[in-house]
């Protein structure tokens, strides 16, 4: 064998440089994102669980206690196979509430920053021996290769390199919850090296020493005691406490918690890990017996911890030694790097930041980052000191046992967090303190004060009872003390947030009535400094697209507070962030405040896929009722007890043109006009119904009726229903107008009939005067009387015609009328009067326009309209006549350049006897007649005046008549 110490060291340094380069290239984006973010990369990094204890220490346990060595592998296998009920809920809680460590979790659950500080201290004390174990494993592996190596010096250099790596790649981002891709890829690479090294070494033993599986089986048949050794029944069941300890260590140790829940953003990784991680552990575990049997053949009996190095030396194969060395280096370095990063964050958030004053400087963020890097160095230094003064006095396995039994004390509290809402802070602390005390007094102190070197299993014999007692007492105290000292309302709220399928609720049950942007700024500034506080608030406002104004709605302030808490949680830790933003305390038992409802609904929307069972059914019912309210054809607006708008359905959006996002959380008086007056006045009145009220929103007049009812159960407030009555109102007006015209028509008909007879008599007597006298004055007077009676007769005939046009049963709709002919004849009739020839007529008529009805009546209508247009038009002006078909209608437009109709007269033009002409010039019945004819023909008429808005003159008359179609002719033919 040509490998010497310096070569091995160089290889080690080269390997570490490879790790640095890998991490650096990952951070620079050289590796594809698909590889970095692939769930397999994350799962491979989880193999950091197989630390030096699993890589080296497993051999000594396998040698002494056979299959008991599988405890570390099987414990973790159980953890990952139970991922859906243990790891996934923890991931959801950590993700929802920005939790990055065990201390964050317990501080959040039990609503106490002091709990976080206490947990941090405990984890730090228990983790340092674990890190020291890794240092010891690496330095001792070199010492066993070459006894000249000074383990302490090697350990020091090793610690410095690990600190550098942790600082460079584990403290790059300010937010603790940012992913450290470089770190994770490097750790994943180490896991691959570890597993491949073990498999390669086992393959060498299997195919090199035993000549394959057949050879191995033959050897085992010849040496049955080797198999029996594996199945050496350990005394008692004490190795099972080991199983439980490794079950807990798989997710409670700081490096595993950090990788599982802080560096991981997706549940798909955990799903993959639920079988891939056990597969990796399985592959590592099956190598152990093979390598152990290899050591039997090669008669390697040094401390079994470093059996792999000795095997390589016995085989005189350099690469075997290198594989063992690099595998061990990977196993140790991975844990050190991740544990350092995790512990530094915990110490910063829970021990330092709560007590020190933060500088008010623009470099606040880099100050925090450098603090974290310094803490990485400090933790490493502490672990080195533990290695120096404590670690190297114990075998690896013993040190590992002490550590893992210590971590086991957190298991009852963690299970209570996930599954038991009634666990209180006092109960949790009592149980934990009792467990840790027993661990310290019964296991740690005796080991430190009376160090012996028994086998691991003998140690277990000694410690088994105490380990069981500590767990039992821990669990019992949690239950009993929690039963005696009930959790507070805050703790209960957080307990609800932690249980499975719970909807994470932001801490929105505090009153915010007096909180403004300025208040938030002052509160943050007192802790972070003005500059940093300002920057954080600006960042949060930008992410919510809110303006930096002090007039934010209560709902927006609540959202702002939640975003600030999330952002600050990533920087300072959730406990510190919550303490910073904690407003006034709860008032009243009702944890819900009205404006929380839409926040709650927003969260329900995002969590709806994860709800199951009864929660999912209730959510379906909620969605159904909400959809019903949302799509009601009348406006629904609900207010809470403080008159803030909670709900604004689609009909309200259609009426007001205001989206729900713009009004939720506002009071009615804060709405835009005219809705503010309408709703706020109605809310203040005692009445529950307000009939159709006119609202002028600038575009048109509309009418709305309002109904109101109070909500008395649970969440108080009121519901306002708003109904659009505009159409009803317009129809009612039109009906009244039509009734008025009809009554006038009937009156006119009656008068006409009564006047007709005496007028006829007067005409006859005047005629007789001509025959009875020759006097010119008398004859002239008689002529005048006859002329006036003829005039009266014409008026009477007009009245009778007007009255008769109301009788629709006489109109025959089965005949088509050519409107082209009608218009041309009307123009000709108009031109018979010389005075009307001074205006020009311009016609633009589509061919073949037909309607149904009476030709003469339509002709009369057009003549009346053209006469009016001509009378209003100045000389040499133009009257335009346009006629065209539009879908099932024929439209006729008559546009003149006259004086137009004033606004005050426009409402009366169809009234009988209404005229603006001088007395004697018009009867006032022309347009009334036109109106009746059009109504009988099922048409519409509209006057627009002024027609020319720029010059403010002219009148445009638009007549719509139903078009005569082929179907009408066919149906008439069918009837005939």
């Amino acid at each position, binding site marked *: 064998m040509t490998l010497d110490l310096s070569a091995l060291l160089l290889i080690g340094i080269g390997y570490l440089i490879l790790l640095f380069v890998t991490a650096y290239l990952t951070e620079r984006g050289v590796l594809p994102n698909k590889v970095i973010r692939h769930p397999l990369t994350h799962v491979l990094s989880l193999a950091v669980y197989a630390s030096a204890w699993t890589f080296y220490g497993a051999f000594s346990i396998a040698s002494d206690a*056979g*299959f008991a060595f*599988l405890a570390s592998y*099987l414990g973790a*296998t*159980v953890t990952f*196979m*139970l991922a859906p*009920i*243990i790891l996934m809920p923890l991931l959801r809680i950590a993700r929802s509430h920005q939790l990055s460590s065990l201390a964050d979790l317990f501080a959040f659950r039990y609503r106490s920053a002091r709990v976080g500080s206490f947990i941090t201290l405990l984890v730090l004390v228990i983790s340092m021996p674990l890190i020291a174990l890794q240092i010891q494993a690496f330095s001792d592996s070199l010492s066993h290769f070459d006894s000249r190596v000074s383990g302490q010096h090697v350990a020091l250099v090793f610690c410095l390199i690990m600190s550098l790596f942790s600082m460079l790649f584990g403290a790059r981002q300010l937010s603790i919850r940012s992913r450290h891709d470089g770190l994770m890829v490097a750790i994943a690479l180490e896991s691959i090296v570890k597993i491949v090294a073990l498999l390669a070494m086992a393959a060498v033993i299997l195919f090199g020493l035993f000549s394959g599986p057949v050879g191995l089986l033959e050897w085992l048949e010849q040496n049955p005691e080797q*198999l029996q050794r*594996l*199945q050496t*029944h*350990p005394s008692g*069941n004490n*190795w*099972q406490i080991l*199983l*439980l300890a490794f*079950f807990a260590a798989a997710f409670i140790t700081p490096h595993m918690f950090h990788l599982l829940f802080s560096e991981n953003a997706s549940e798909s990784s955990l*799903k*993959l890990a*639920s*079988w*891939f991680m*056990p*597969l990796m552990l*399985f592959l590592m*575990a*099956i190598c152990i017996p093979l390598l152990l049997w290899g050591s039997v053949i090669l008669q390697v009996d040094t401390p079994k911890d470093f059996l792999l190095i000795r095997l390589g030396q016995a085989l005189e194969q350099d690469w075997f030694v290198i594989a063992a060395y690099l595998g061990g280096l990977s196993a140790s370095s991975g844990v050190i790097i991740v544990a350092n990063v995790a512990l530094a964050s915990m110490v910063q958030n829970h021990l330092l930041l709560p007590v020190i004053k933060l500088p008010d400087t623009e470099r606040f963020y880099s100050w925090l980052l450098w603090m974290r890097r310094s803490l990485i160095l400090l933790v490493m230094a502490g672990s080195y000191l533990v290695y120096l003064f404590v670690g190297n006095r114990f075998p690896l396995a013993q040190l590992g046992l002490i550590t893992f039994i210590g971590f086991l004390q957190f298991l009852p509290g963690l*299970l209570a967090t996930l*599954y*038991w809402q009634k666990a209180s802070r006092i109960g949790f602390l009592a149980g934990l303190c009792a467990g840790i005390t027993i661990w310290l007094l019964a296991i740690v102190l005796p080991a430190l004060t009376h160090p012996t070197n028994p086998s691991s299993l003998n140690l277990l014999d000694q410690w088994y009872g105490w380990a069981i007692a500590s767990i039992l007492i821990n669990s019992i105290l949690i239950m009993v003390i929690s039963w005696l000292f009930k959790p507070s309302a805050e703790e209960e709220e957080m307990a609800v947030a932690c*249980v*499975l*399928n719970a909807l994470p609720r932001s801490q929105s049950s505090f009153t915010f009535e007096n909180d403004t942007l300025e208040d938030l700024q002052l509160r943050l500034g007192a802790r972070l400094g003005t500059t940093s506080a300002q920057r954080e608030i600006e960042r949060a406002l930008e992410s919510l697209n809110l303006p930096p104004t002090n007039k934010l709605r209560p709902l927006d302030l609540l959202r702002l507070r939640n975003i600030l808490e999330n952002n600050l949680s990533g920087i300072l830790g959730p406990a510190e962030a919550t303490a910073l933003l904690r407003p006034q305390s709860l008032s009243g038992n009702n944890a819900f405040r009205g404006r929380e409802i839409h926040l709650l609904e927003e969260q329900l929307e995002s969590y709806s896929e994860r709800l*199951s*069972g*009864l929660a999912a059914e209730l959510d379906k019912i909620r969605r159904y009722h909400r959809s019903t309210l949302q799509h009601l054809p009348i406006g629904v607006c609900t207010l809470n007890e403080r008159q803030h708008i909670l709900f604004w359905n689609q009909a309200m959006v259609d009426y007001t043109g205001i989206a729900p996002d713009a009004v939720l959380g506002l009071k009615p008086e804060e709405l835009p006009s005219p809705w503010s007056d309408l709703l706020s006045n109605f809310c203040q009145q005692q009445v529950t119904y307000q009939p159709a009220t006119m609202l002028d929103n600038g575009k048109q007049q509309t009418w709305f009726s309002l109904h109101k009812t109070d909500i008395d159960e649970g969440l108080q407030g009121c519901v306002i229903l708003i109904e659009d009555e505009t159409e009803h109102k317009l129809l009612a007006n039109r009906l009244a107008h039509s009734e008025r015209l009809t009554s006038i028509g009937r009156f006119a008909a009656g008068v006409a009939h009564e006047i007709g007879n005496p007028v006829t008599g007067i005409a006859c007597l005047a005629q007789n005067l001509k025959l009875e006298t020759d006097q010119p004055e008398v004859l002239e007077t008689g002529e005048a009387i006859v002329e006036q009676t003829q005039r009266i007769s014409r008026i009477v005939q007009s009245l009778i015609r007007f009255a008769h046009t109301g009788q629709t049963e006489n109109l025959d709709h089965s005949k088509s009328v050519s409107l082209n002919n009608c218009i041309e004849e009307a123009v000709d009739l108009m031109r018979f009067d010389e005075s009307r020839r001074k205006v020009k007529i311009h016609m633009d008529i589509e061919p073949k326009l037909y309607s149904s009805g009476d030709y003469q009546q339509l002709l009369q209508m057009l003549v009346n309209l053209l006469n009016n247009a001509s009378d209003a038009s100045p000389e040499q002006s133009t009257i335009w006549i346009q006629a065209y078909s539009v879908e099932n209608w024929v439209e006729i437009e008559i546009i003149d350049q006259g004086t137009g109709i004033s606004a005050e007269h426009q409402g009366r033009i169809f009234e009988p006897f209404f005229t603006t002409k001088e007395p004697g010039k018009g009867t006032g019945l022309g347009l009334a007649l036109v109106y009746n004819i059009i109504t009988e023909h099922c048409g519409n008429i509209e006057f627009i005046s002024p027609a020319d808005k720029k010059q403010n003159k002219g009148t445009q008359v638009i007549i719509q008549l139903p078009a005569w179609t082929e179907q009408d002719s066919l149906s008439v033919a069918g009837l005939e």
Partner: protein
Amino acid sequence: MHQHRILILLVLLCLTLAPPLIHAGLFTGPVWLPFFLWAMLIFIAALLNLSGKNS
């Protein structure tokens, strides 16, 4: 709540029964049995996860 109680019972059951079951498998049956059972569990877990992904 009912669902939580079932899950609590499941976890406690696993933690209570797993050690003696594992003990029995490791120390009383054939040497290859624990590894075989372990491999089967991994295989079933993988099947369940992969079938869940594809459905």
